[in-house]
Protein backbone atom coordinates (compact mmCIF):
# COMPACT_ATOMS: atom_id res chain seq x y z
CA UNK A 1 0.00 0.00 0.00
CA UNK A 2 1.65 3.24 -1.14
CA UNK A 3 1.21 6.62 0.56
CA UNK A 4 -1.24 7.71 -2.17
CA UNK A 5 -3.31 4.57 -1.61
CA UNK A 6 -3.46 5.24 2.12
CA UNK A 7 -4.51 8.81 1.48
CA UNK A 8 -7.25 7.67 -0.89
CA UNK A 9 -8.38 5.08 1.63
CA UNK A 10 -8.57 7.64 4.42
CA UNK A 11 -10.29 10.09 2.12
CA UNK A 12 -13.01 7.52 1.48
CA UNK A 13 -13.28 6.72 5.18
CA UNK A 14 -13.68 10.42 6.06
CA UNK A 15 -16.92 10.51 4.08
CA UNK A 16 -18.60 13.53 2.56
CA UNK A 17 -18.26 15.99 5.47
CA UNK A 18 -21.90 17.05 5.52
CA UNK A 19 -22.34 19.25 8.57
CA UNK A 20 -25.25 18.80 10.97
CA UNK A 21 -28.02 21.30 10.16
CA UNK A 22 -27.31 24.84 11.47
CA UNK A 23 -24.12 23.81 13.25
CA UNK A 24 -22.93 27.42 13.46
CA UNK A 25 -26.23 28.54 15.04
CA UNK A 26 -26.12 25.70 17.56
CA UNK A 27 -22.53 26.53 18.45
CA UNK A 28 -23.22 30.25 18.91
CA UNK A 29 -26.24 29.57 21.11
CA UNK A 30 -24.38 26.97 23.20
CA UNK A 31 -21.28 29.19 23.53
CA UNK A 32 -23.39 32.10 24.78
CA UNK A 33 -25.22 29.87 27.25
CA UNK A 34 -21.89 28.51 28.44
CA UNK A 35 -20.55 32.01 28.93
CA UNK A 36 -23.64 32.98 30.93
CA UNK A 37 -23.19 29.90 33.13
CA UNK A 38 -19.54 30.71 33.71
CA UNK A 39 -20.33 34.33 34.62
CA UNK A 40 -23.04 33.14 37.02
CA UNK A 41 -20.70 30.61 38.64
CA UNK A 42 -17.96 33.25 38.95
CA UNK A 43 -20.44 35.67 40.53
CA UNK A 44 -21.60 33.06 43.05
CA UNK A 45 -17.97 32.19 43.83
CA UNK A 46 -17.15 35.87 44.34
CA UNK A 47 -20.12 36.33 46.66
CA UNK A 48 -19.13 33.24 48.65
CA UNK A 49 -15.52 34.44 48.84
CA UNK A 50 -16.60 37.86 50.11
CA UNK A 51 -18.99 36.25 52.59
CA UNK A 52 -16.22 33.91 53.74
CA UNK A 53 -13.83 36.83 54.14
CA UNK A 54 -16.34 38.80 56.19
CA UNK A 55 -17.07 35.79 58.40
CA UNK A 56 -13.37 35.22 58.97
CA UNK A 57 -12.79 38.88 59.76
CA UNK A 58 -15.60 38.83 62.32
CA UNK A 59 -14.21 35.69 63.97
CA UNK A 60 -11.59 36.67 66.59
CA UNK A 61 -8.19 35.55 65.41
CA UNK A 62 -9.81 33.66 62.58
CA UNK A 63 -8.78 33.65 58.97
CA UNK A 64 -10.05 31.64 56.05
CA UNK A 65 -7.93 28.58 55.43
CA UNK A 66 -6.05 29.48 52.29
CA UNK A 67 -6.49 27.02 49.44
CA UNK A 68 -3.56 26.60 47.11
CA UNK A 69 -3.51 29.58 44.77
CA UNK A 70 -2.37 29.18 41.21
CA UNK A 71 1.14 30.41 40.52
CA UNK A 72 -0.13 31.76 37.22
CA UNK A 73 -1.64 35.19 36.70
CA UNK A 74 -5.44 34.94 36.26
CA UNK A 75 -5.21 35.76 32.53
CA UNK A 76 -2.54 33.09 32.06
CA UNK A 77 -4.58 30.58 34.04
CA UNK A 78 -7.52 31.28 31.73
CA UNK A 79 -5.36 30.73 28.64
CA UNK A 80 -4.06 27.49 30.12
CA UNK A 81 -7.54 26.20 30.85
CA UNK A 82 -8.66 27.23 27.36
CA UNK A 83 -5.87 25.13 25.89
CA UNK A 84 -6.24 22.16 28.22
CA UNK A 85 -10.00 22.25 27.85
CA UNK A 86 -10.78 21.85 31.54
CA UNK A 87 -10.06 23.56 34.87
CA UNK A 88 -6.46 23.20 36.01
CA UNK A 89 -6.10 23.03 39.81
CA UNK A 90 -3.03 24.73 41.29
CA UNK A 91 -1.70 21.39 42.56
CA UNK A 92 -1.19 20.21 38.99
CA UNK A 93 1.22 23.02 38.14
CA UNK A 94 4.70 21.63 38.73
CA UNK A 95 6.62 24.53 37.22
CA UNK A 96 5.87 27.63 35.22
CA UNK A 97 7.86 30.47 33.78
CA UNK A 98 8.41 32.81 30.90
CA UNK A 99 11.05 31.93 28.32
CA UNK A 100 11.55 34.72 25.80
CA UNK A 101 8.21 35.44 24.19
CA UNK A 102 6.46 32.34 25.43
CA UNK A 103 5.05 31.06 28.68
CA UNK A 104 5.81 27.48 29.65
CA UNK A 105 3.91 25.38 32.13
CA UNK A 106 4.68 21.83 33.24
CA UNK A 107 1.56 20.10 34.50
CA UNK A 108 1.51 16.95 36.56
CA UNK A 109 -0.36 14.26 34.66
CA UNK A 110 -3.60 13.23 36.37
CA UNK A 111 -3.24 10.25 38.68
CA UNK A 112 -4.55 6.85 37.79
CA UNK A 113 -2.39 6.26 34.77
CA UNK A 114 -0.22 3.28 35.67
CA UNK A 115 3.43 4.29 35.63
CA UNK A 116 6.52 4.58 37.75
CA UNK A 117 7.91 7.98 38.70
CA UNK A 118 6.00 11.17 38.06
CA UNK A 119 5.01 12.37 34.65
CA UNK A 120 4.41 15.92 33.49
CA UNK A 121 3.06 17.38 30.30
CA UNK A 122 4.40 20.62 28.93
CA UNK A 123 2.22 23.41 27.55
CA UNK A 124 3.34 26.64 25.92
CA UNK A 125 1.59 29.86 24.99
CA UNK A 126 2.72 32.66 22.74
CA UNK A 127 1.20 36.03 21.93
CA UNK A 128 -1.71 35.75 24.33
CA UNK A 129 -3.03 32.62 22.62
CA UNK A 130 -4.31 29.61 24.54
CA UNK A 131 -1.67 27.13 25.64
CA UNK A 132 -0.76 24.31 23.29
CA UNK A 133 0.55 20.90 24.25
CA UNK A 134 4.25 20.65 23.46
CA UNK A 135 5.14 17.37 25.17
CA UNK A 136 2.76 14.96 26.80
CA UNK A 137 5.15 12.69 28.64
CA UNK A 138 8.06 14.01 30.62
CA UNK A 139 9.26 11.84 33.48
CA UNK A 140 10.56 13.52 36.62
CA UNK A 141 11.43 12.37 40.14
CA UNK A 142 12.19 9.13 38.39
CA UNK A 143 15.60 8.31 39.86
CA UNK A 144 19.16 9.50 40.44
CA UNK A 145 22.38 9.36 38.50
CA UNK A 146 24.52 6.41 39.45
CA UNK A 147 26.69 7.20 42.44
CA UNK A 148 24.84 10.38 43.45
CA UNK A 149 24.46 9.57 47.14
CA UNK A 150 22.91 12.93 48.05
CA UNK A 151 20.22 12.46 45.43
CA UNK A 152 19.50 8.92 46.62
CA UNK A 153 19.19 10.17 50.19
CA UNK A 154 16.65 12.91 49.47
CA UNK A 155 14.78 11.12 46.67
CA UNK A 156 11.85 10.13 48.93
CA UNK A 157 11.13 13.82 49.53
CA UNK A 158 11.06 14.66 45.82
CA UNK A 159 13.90 15.74 43.58
CA UNK A 160 12.54 18.39 41.25
CA UNK A 161 12.48 18.58 37.49
CA UNK A 162 13.84 20.51 34.58
CA UNK A 163 13.42 20.83 30.86
CA UNK A 164 15.36 22.60 28.17
CA UNK A 165 13.44 24.78 25.76
CA UNK A 166 15.19 25.42 22.47
CA UNK A 167 13.57 27.87 20.10
CA UNK A 168 14.70 30.41 17.50
CA UNK A 169 18.34 29.76 18.35
CA UNK A 170 17.85 30.47 22.04
CA UNK A 171 18.00 27.98 24.88
CA UNK A 172 16.19 28.28 28.20
CA UNK A 173 16.01 25.98 31.17
CA UNK A 174 12.85 25.70 33.23
CA UNK A 175 13.86 24.14 36.54
CA UNK A 176 11.94 23.35 39.69
CA UNK A 177 13.09 22.13 43.10
CA UNK A 178 11.19 21.37 46.31
CA UNK A 179 10.71 24.23 48.77
CA UNK A 180 13.76 25.00 50.92
CA UNK A 181 16.25 24.10 48.18
CA UNK A 182 17.83 26.23 45.49
CA UNK A 183 18.67 25.57 41.88
CA UNK A 184 21.92 26.05 39.98
CA UNK A 185 22.04 25.86 36.20
CA UNK A 186 25.43 25.16 34.66
CA UNK A 187 27.00 26.16 37.95
CA UNK A 188 25.19 29.51 38.21
CA UNK A 189 22.85 29.91 41.20
CA UNK A 190 19.25 30.54 40.14
CA UNK A 191 17.71 30.77 43.62
CA UNK A 192 14.77 28.92 45.10
CA UNK A 193 12.29 27.56 42.59
CA UNK A 194 9.39 25.78 44.25
CA UNK A 195 7.20 26.78 41.30
CA UNK A 196 9.93 26.89 38.68
CA UNK A 197 12.48 29.35 37.43
CA UNK A 198 13.57 30.09 33.88
CA UNK A 199 17.25 30.58 33.15
CA UNK A 200 18.64 31.44 29.69
CA UNK A 201 21.72 29.40 28.87
CA UNK A 202 24.44 29.38 26.23
CA UNK A 203 24.61 25.79 25.15
CA UNK A 204 25.74 24.41 21.85
CA UNK A 205 24.21 21.11 22.86
CA UNK A 206 21.16 21.42 25.15
CA UNK A 207 21.85 17.92 26.45
CA UNK A 208 25.02 19.27 28.06
CA UNK A 209 23.08 21.58 30.37
CA UNK A 210 23.54 20.56 33.99
CA UNK A 211 20.99 21.39 36.65
CA UNK A 212 21.87 20.93 40.30
CA UNK A 213 19.71 21.32 43.37
CA UNK A 214 21.38 22.69 46.49
CA UNK A 215 20.13 21.61 49.91
CA UNK A 216 19.98 24.04 52.88
CA UNK A 217 23.15 22.42 54.28
CA UNK A 218 25.05 23.16 51.07
CA UNK A 219 25.13 19.62 49.70
CA UNK A 220 23.95 19.27 46.14
CA UNK A 221 22.67 16.67 43.74
CA UNK A 222 22.25 16.71 40.00
CA UNK A 223 18.84 16.37 38.39
CA UNK A 224 19.19 13.51 35.93
CA UNK A 225 18.42 14.38 32.31
CA UNK A 226 15.30 12.45 31.37
CA UNK A 227 14.30 11.38 27.87
CA UNK A 228 12.48 14.14 26.06
CA UNK A 229 13.63 17.06 28.22
CA UNK A 230 14.92 19.00 25.23
CA UNK A 231 11.91 20.62 23.61
CA UNK A 232 12.25 22.19 20.19
CA UNK A 233 9.52 23.36 17.84
Amino acid sequence: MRDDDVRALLDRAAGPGDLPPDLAGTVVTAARARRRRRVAVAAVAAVLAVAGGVTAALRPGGAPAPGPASVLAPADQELLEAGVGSPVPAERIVAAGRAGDESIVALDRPPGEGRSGKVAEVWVSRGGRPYELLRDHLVYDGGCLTGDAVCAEVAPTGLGMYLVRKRDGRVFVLAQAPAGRTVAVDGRPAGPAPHGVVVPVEAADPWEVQVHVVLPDGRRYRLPPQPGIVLGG
Partner: protein
Amino acid sequence: MSGDDFTAFVAHSGPRLLRYAVLLCGDRGEAEDLLQETLIRVYPRWHRLREQQPEAYVRRALTNRAVSRWRSPWHRRRVDGVPERPVPGDELGRADDRQVLLAALRSLPDRMRAVVVLRYWLGCTEQEAAAELGCSVGSVKSQASRGLARLRATVGTATAQEAGR
Protein backbone atom coordinates in the same frame (compact mmCIF):
# COMPACT_ATOMS: atom_id res chain seq x y z
CA MET B 1 -18.00 39.57 17.59
CA SER B 2 -19.19 38.83 14.12
CA GLY B 3 -21.59 35.92 14.01
CA ASP B 4 -21.77 36.19 10.21
CA ASP B 5 -18.01 35.72 9.96
CA PHE B 6 -18.18 32.69 12.16
CA THR B 7 -21.10 31.21 10.23
CA ALA B 8 -19.19 31.68 6.98
CA PHE B 9 -16.13 30.05 8.54
CA VAL B 10 -18.13 27.04 9.71
CA ALA B 11 -19.78 26.69 6.30
CA HIS B 12 -16.44 26.90 4.50
CA SER B 13 -14.03 25.03 6.78
CA GLY B 14 -16.53 22.92 8.75
CA PRO B 15 -16.72 20.03 6.27
CA ARG B 16 -12.92 19.65 6.18
CA LEU B 17 -12.74 19.86 9.97
CA LEU B 18 -15.54 17.33 10.35
CA ARG B 19 -13.81 14.89 8.01
CA TYR B 20 -10.63 15.31 10.03
CA ALA B 21 -12.58 14.66 13.23
CA VAL B 22 -14.20 11.56 11.70
CA LEU B 23 -10.78 10.10 10.98
CA LEU B 24 -9.43 11.16 14.36
CA CYS B 25 -12.33 9.50 16.21
CA GLY B 26 -13.06 6.71 13.76
CA ASP B 27 -16.74 7.42 14.34
CA ARG B 28 -19.04 9.92 12.68
CA GLY B 29 -21.28 10.66 15.69
CA GLU B 30 -18.35 11.08 18.05
CA ALA B 31 -16.69 13.33 15.49
CA GLU B 32 -19.74 15.62 15.28
CA ASP B 33 -19.76 15.92 19.09
CA LEU B 34 -16.02 16.64 19.13
CA LEU B 35 -16.30 19.32 16.46
CA GLN B 36 -19.27 20.99 18.13
CA GLU B 37 -17.61 20.99 21.57
CA THR B 38 -14.44 22.43 20.09
CA LEU B 39 -16.24 25.16 18.18
CA ILE B 40 -18.18 26.11 21.32
CA ARG B 41 -14.88 26.67 23.11
CA VAL B 42 -13.34 28.51 20.20
CA TYR B 43 -16.24 30.87 19.51
CA PRO B 44 -15.60 33.26 22.46
CA ARG B 45 -12.12 33.92 21.04
CA TRP B 46 -13.28 34.19 17.45
CA HIS B 47 -12.67 37.94 17.19
CA ARG B 48 -8.96 37.31 17.72
CA LEU B 49 -8.69 34.07 15.77
CA ARG B 50 -10.33 35.20 12.58
CA GLU B 51 -7.34 37.42 11.80
CA GLN B 52 -5.00 34.44 12.04
CA GLN B 53 -5.45 30.98 10.56
CA PRO B 54 -8.67 29.87 12.19
CA GLU B 55 -8.91 26.53 10.42
CA ALA B 56 -5.44 25.47 11.52
CA TYR B 57 -6.22 26.69 15.02
CA VAL B 58 -9.47 24.73 15.23
CA ARG B 59 -7.80 21.63 13.81
CA ARG B 60 -5.16 21.88 16.52
CA ALA B 61 -7.86 22.40 19.14
CA LEU B 62 -9.66 19.30 17.81
CA THR B 63 -6.48 17.29 18.20
CA ASN B 64 -5.86 18.58 21.73
CA ARG B 65 -9.42 17.88 22.74
CA ALA B 66 -9.35 14.40 21.26
CA VAL B 67 -6.12 13.65 23.11
CA SER B 68 -7.68 14.92 26.36
CA ARG B 69 -10.71 12.70 25.78
CA TRP B 70 -8.56 9.64 25.21
CA ARG B 71 -6.86 10.26 28.52
CA SER B 72 -10.13 10.67 30.35
CA PRO B 73 -11.00 7.77 32.65
CA TRP B 74 -14.48 7.90 31.14
CA HIS B 75 -13.13 7.14 27.70
CA ARG B 76 -13.44 3.54 26.72
CA ARG B 77 -12.05 2.70 23.37
CA ARG B 78 -14.57 0.89 21.29
CA VAL B 79 -13.03 -1.78 19.16
CA ASP B 80 -15.64 -3.21 16.87
CA GLY B 81 -15.06 -6.09 14.58
CA VAL B 82 -14.53 -5.06 11.01
CA PRO B 83 -17.90 -5.51 9.28
CA GLU B 84 -18.22 -7.72 6.28
CA ARG B 85 -17.30 -6.11 3.02
CA PRO B 86 -20.40 -4.88 1.14
CA VAL B 87 -21.21 -5.33 -2.50
CA PRO B 88 -19.61 -2.26 -4.10
CA GLY B 89 -21.10 -0.05 -6.74
CA ASP B 90 -24.10 1.71 -5.26
CA GLU B 91 -24.45 4.56 -2.77
CA LEU B 92 -25.42 2.20 0.03
CA GLY B 93 -22.43 0.05 -0.84
CA ARG B 94 -20.13 3.08 -0.63
CA ALA B 95 -21.58 4.04 2.75
CA ASP B 96 -21.01 0.50 4.03
CA ASP B 97 -17.55 0.56 2.50
CA ARG B 98 -16.82 3.62 4.63
CA GLN B 99 -17.99 1.71 7.70
CA VAL B 100 -15.47 -1.02 6.89
CA LEU B 101 -12.70 1.55 6.61
CA LEU B 102 -13.77 3.40 9.75
CA ALA B 103 -13.90 0.15 11.69
CA ALA B 104 -10.39 -0.63 10.46
CA LEU B 105 -9.30 2.81 11.66
CA ARG B 106 -11.06 2.34 14.99
CA SER B 107 -9.15 -0.88 15.51
CA LEU B 108 -5.97 1.19 15.82
CA PRO B 109 -5.05 2.64 19.21
CA ASP B 110 -6.10 6.31 19.47
CA ARG B 111 -2.69 7.86 19.17
CA MET B 112 -1.61 5.53 16.39
CA ARG B 113 -4.75 6.45 14.46
CA ALA B 114 -4.02 10.14 14.93
CA VAL B 115 -0.47 9.69 13.68
CA VAL B 116 -1.68 7.84 10.57
CA VAL B 117 -4.26 10.55 9.85
CA LEU B 118 -1.80 13.41 10.35
CA ARG B 119 0.94 11.78 8.30
CA TYR B 120 -0.98 10.21 5.45
CA TRP B 121 -4.18 12.21 5.15
CA LEU B 122 -3.09 15.70 6.13
CA GLY B 123 0.40 15.16 4.77
CA CYS B 124 2.19 16.46 7.88
CA THR B 125 5.90 15.81 8.17
CA GLU B 126 7.06 13.65 11.05
CA GLN B 127 8.16 16.80 12.87
CA GLU B 128 4.79 18.51 12.33
CA ALA B 129 2.87 15.44 13.48
CA ALA B 130 5.07 15.22 16.58
CA ALA B 131 4.44 18.88 17.38
CA GLU B 132 0.71 18.46 16.81
CA LEU B 133 0.48 15.50 19.18
CA GLY B 134 3.08 16.64 21.68
CA CYS B 135 5.25 13.56 21.32
CA SER B 136 8.67 12.74 19.93
CA VAL B 137 9.54 12.33 16.24
CA GLY B 138 10.69 8.80 17.01
CA SER B 139 7.29 7.98 18.42
CA VAL B 140 5.61 9.34 15.28
CA LYS B 141 7.89 7.23 13.07
CA SER B 142 7.19 4.00 14.91
CA GLN B 143 3.45 4.63 15.30
CA ALA B 144 3.07 5.55 11.62
CA SER B 145 4.90 2.44 10.50
CA ARG B 146 3.01 0.10 12.83
CA GLY B 147 -0.30 1.84 12.13
CA LEU B 148 0.13 1.46 8.41
CA ALA B 149 0.99 -2.22 8.77
CA ARG B 150 -2.05 -2.86 10.94
CA LEU B 151 -4.34 -0.92 8.62
CA ARG B 152 -2.98 -2.83 5.63
CA ALA B 153 -3.57 -6.15 7.39
CA THR B 154 -7.10 -5.25 8.55
CA VAL B 155 -8.28 -3.86 5.23
CA GLY B 156 -6.51 -6.69 3.39
CA THR B 157 -8.37 -9.29 5.44
CA ALA B 158 -11.71 -7.65 4.66
CA THR B 159 -10.83 -7.53 0.96
CA ALA B 160 -9.78 -11.20 0.95
CA GLN B 161 -13.07 -12.14 2.58
CA GLU B 162 -14.88 -10.29 -0.19
CA ALA B 163 -12.84 -12.03 -2.89
CA GLY B 164 -13.48 -15.44 -1.34
CA ARG B 165 -17.21 -14.96 -1.51
